[in-house]
C-alpha cells in the first residue's frame, strides 16, 4: 500500500501543480475574454526613438572628437544647469582632445563649485574645481528629479537615439486619432510637457533646445536644434563609456588571436585523432 503511494507521489505532485495551473489558466482566459485589457495611453502614443547614426556606432566605430567637444559645450551651456555629470572627472576631458591647461581652466571656471567641509566651523563651504575632481552634483529645486546624465545612454533602451529623439520630439503632439481615445491628453498638466518619446508621455523637463544658435560652436558647424541634440547625444555616449574605442580595438586583437589559435587547435585535434575511429 505504502509502496503504491510512494510510486504515485509523482503523479499527485505533478497533477496538483497542473490542476492549479489549469485553474489559473481558466481564470486568465476568462479575464481576457470578458475584460480585455484596455489599451493604455502609453501604448497608443509612445514612440520608439528615431534612428540615430553616430561615428561611434558599430564594431569599427570611432569617436568623433570634434563632435564630442561640441556635445560637451551643449551640456555645459544648456544641460549642466539641472543635470549632474557626477561619474565623469574633469581630467577625463583630455580624452576629448583638450590640453592640460585647457582642462584646468574648464575645471576652475566651472559654475558649480566643489563642496568642502570646514572642520573648525562645522559648516559646508566650497572651492574651485581641479582636474582630479569629479563633476560636482547638481541639486535641482523644482519639480521632478533631473537624472544624472553620465550613464543615461546606457540606462535607456537605445540610449543615444532616445536622447536625440527626446530633445527634438517636443513638437510632436498627440494625433487626432489618439486624442479621440484619450481626450485628457488635449491639455497637458501645468508644469509638464508632452513628448511622445518619453515613457510616461508627459515630462517635467521643458524643451531645453528651443532655437538654432542657442550654443556658439567654434568649429563653424551650424548649431541647429537637431545638430545640438545629435552632438550632446554623441557626447553622452562617450560619458557612458569613455573606454569604448579601447574595448573594440582590444576585441579585434583578441578575436584575431583566438581565430588563429582556433585553427591551430583544430589542426592539433585532427592530428591527435588521425586514423582513430570514433
Amino acid at each position, binding site marked *: 500500500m505504502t509502496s503504491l503511494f510512494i510510486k504515485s507521489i*509523482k*503523479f499527485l*505532485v*505533478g*497533477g496538483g*501543480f*497542473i*490542476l*492549479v*495551473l*489549469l*485553474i*489559473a*489558466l481558466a*481564470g*486568465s*482566459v476568462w*479575464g*481576457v475574454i470578458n475584460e480585455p*485589457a484596455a489599451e493604455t495611453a502609453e501604448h497608443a502614443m509612445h514612440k520608439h526613438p528615431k534612428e540615430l547614426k553616430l561615428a561611434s556606432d558599430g*564594431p569599427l566605430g570611432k569617436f568623433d572628437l570634434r563632435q564630442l567637444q561640441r556635445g560637451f559645450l551643449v551640456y555645459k551651456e544648456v544641460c549642466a544647469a539641472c543635470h549632474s555629470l557626477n*561619474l565623469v*572627472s574633469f581630467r*577625463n576631458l583630455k580624452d576629448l582632445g583638450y590640453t592640460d591647461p585647457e582642462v584646468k581652466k574648464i575645471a576652475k571656471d566651472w559654475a558649480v563649485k566643489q563642496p568642502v567641509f570646514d572642520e573648525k566651523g562645522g559648516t559646508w563651504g566650497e572651492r574651485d574645481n581641479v582636474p582630479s575632481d*569629479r563633476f560636482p552634483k547638481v541639486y535641482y529645486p523644482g519639480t521632478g528629479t533631473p*537624472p544624472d546624465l*553620465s*550613464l543615461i545612454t*546606457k*540606462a*535607456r*533602451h537605445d*540610449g543615444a537615439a532616445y536622447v536625440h529623439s527626446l530633445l527634438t520630439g517636443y513638437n510632436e503632439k498627440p494625433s487626432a486619432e489618439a486624442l479621440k481615445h484619450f481626450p485628457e491628453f488635449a491639455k497637458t498638466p501645468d508644469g509638464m510637457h508632452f513628448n511622445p518619446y518619453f*515613457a510616461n508621455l508627459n515630462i517635467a523637463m521643458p524643451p531645453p533646445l528651443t532655437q538654432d544658435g542657442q550654443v556658439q560652436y567654434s568649429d563653424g558647424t551650424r548649431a541647429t536644434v537637431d545638430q545640438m541634440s545629435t552632438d550632446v547625444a554623441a557626447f553622452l555616449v562617450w560619458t*557612458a*563609456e*569613455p*573606454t569604448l574605442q*579601447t*574595448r*573594440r580595438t*582590444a*576585441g*579585434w586583437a*583578441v*578575436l584575431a588571436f*583566438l*581565430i588563429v*589559435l*582556433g585553427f591551430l*587547435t*583544430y589542426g*592539433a*585535434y585532427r592530428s*591527435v*585523432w588521425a586514423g*582513430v*575511429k*570514433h
Partner: protein
Amino acid sequence: MSFPWAKHYEPKNPVMQWVDSRLPLPRFVYNAVGAGYPVPRNLNYWWNFGVLAGVALVCQLITGIVLAMHFHSSAAGAFDSVNVGIMRDVNAGWFLRFAHANGASMFFVVIYIHMFRGLYYGSYKAPREMVWLLGVVIFLLLMATAFMGYVLPWGQMSFWGAQVITGFFSAIPVVGDWVRVWLLGGYAPDDAALNRFFSLHYLLPFVIAGAVILHIWALHIPGSSNPTGVEVKGEQDTVPFHPYYTAKDGLGVVVFLILFSVLIFFAPDYLGHPDNYIPANPLSTPAHIVPEWYFWPFYAILRAFTADFILPAKLWGVLAMFGSILLLFFLPWLDKSPVRSGSYRPMYKVAFWVLVADVLVLGYCGGSPAEPLYVILSQIAAAYYFAHFLIIVPIISHLETPKPLPGSITEAVLAKTGA
C-alpha cells in the same frame, strides 16, 4: 574506477618521481585527466560542456577576485565603485567587469546545454545518479551565487531583484516574514544585505569548486557515459583522456573563448538590463522588474500561478518555482527506462524536444511583461514542464519500445565509420 587496461603512472622525470612518492598528486592528475583515464572513444561535442563549465568557473573566480580588490560593498559606495572606479579608473577595469558579468551568462549557457545533454542521453541513470544529484546541487549553488552577484553593483535591478527574491520567503507560512528579515538583516535590501551578499558571493564559488570535485570523482567511478548509452565493455571501446580529449576539449575551449570575447568586446551590455545603470532607488520601482535571462524560465513559472486554491497564489508560485528545480533530484527514479540514450528511445526523444521548446517558451515569457498573452503562455508551458517530468516521462519509460541497442561502443563506431 575499474578499467583494468588503464595505463599506470610511471614517471620518467626524477623531479616527478620525487614529488609523486611523497604526495601522490602527479599520479592523481594522470589518473583523472591524463593518459591513465580511459574514456569512450565515441563522445560527441555535447560532452565538451562539462569542461567548459569548469573553464567558466575559473574565469569567474579569477576576474571576481581581482574585482573584489576594487569593489566597495556599501549601499553608498557600491554603484560608484563599479561604474566610476572599476569601469573608468582601474587599469583594464572595464575588461574585468564586462568579463565577469558576461562570464556569468556564458556559465549558464554552458550549464544548461550540459544539463540538457544529461537529459537526452540519460546520464542521470544508474550507476551515475550521484553525479546527477551533485550536479543539481551545483546548479542550485550557481543560481544563488549569480543572484547575489547581480545585487552587488546596486543598480535599480540589483535592488528590486533582491527585494522580489527575498520577498518569496515571506510566502512561507508562520515564519515567512521573520525569515525574510533575517536574510536581509533589515526590513529592505540595504547595507546589511549588500555586505552579506558580497561575503557569500565570494564564498560560494569555492563551495561550487568543492562540489565539482565530488561531481567529477563520482563520475570517474563508473567512467563517462557515451552517446549510445551502452557501457564500456573492453579496451577497444576507449581511448585515454590525454591526448584525445585534452585536444578535443582544447578546441572546445577556444570556441568558447571566441563567443565569450564577442560578448565582452562587442556586445557587453546586450544580455544585461539598462535599468541596472541607474543607481538603486528604494522609492522608485522600475516599470518591469525582470531578473537576468538565465532565470527567466523560473520567473515565468513563478508568475504563472495567478489563482488561489487552498493556498495563496503567491505561495503556489514560490513552491512551483523551487519545485521545478527540486524535481530534478528525483529524475533517476522518475525515468525507469533501462535504455539510457534518447537516440534509441523514439517516444522519449519527442518528449525531450518538446521540453526544450517548452523551456524556451518559458524563458521568453519570463523576460516579458506580465500581460495576459504571456501569462497564458506561461501557464500552459509550466503545466507541460511539470507534466513532462512527473507524468509523461514516467509513463513513457513503461510504454516505450526502444530501438535495438548496439552490442558495444565499438560495434556502433564501426557501423558508423565502416570497418
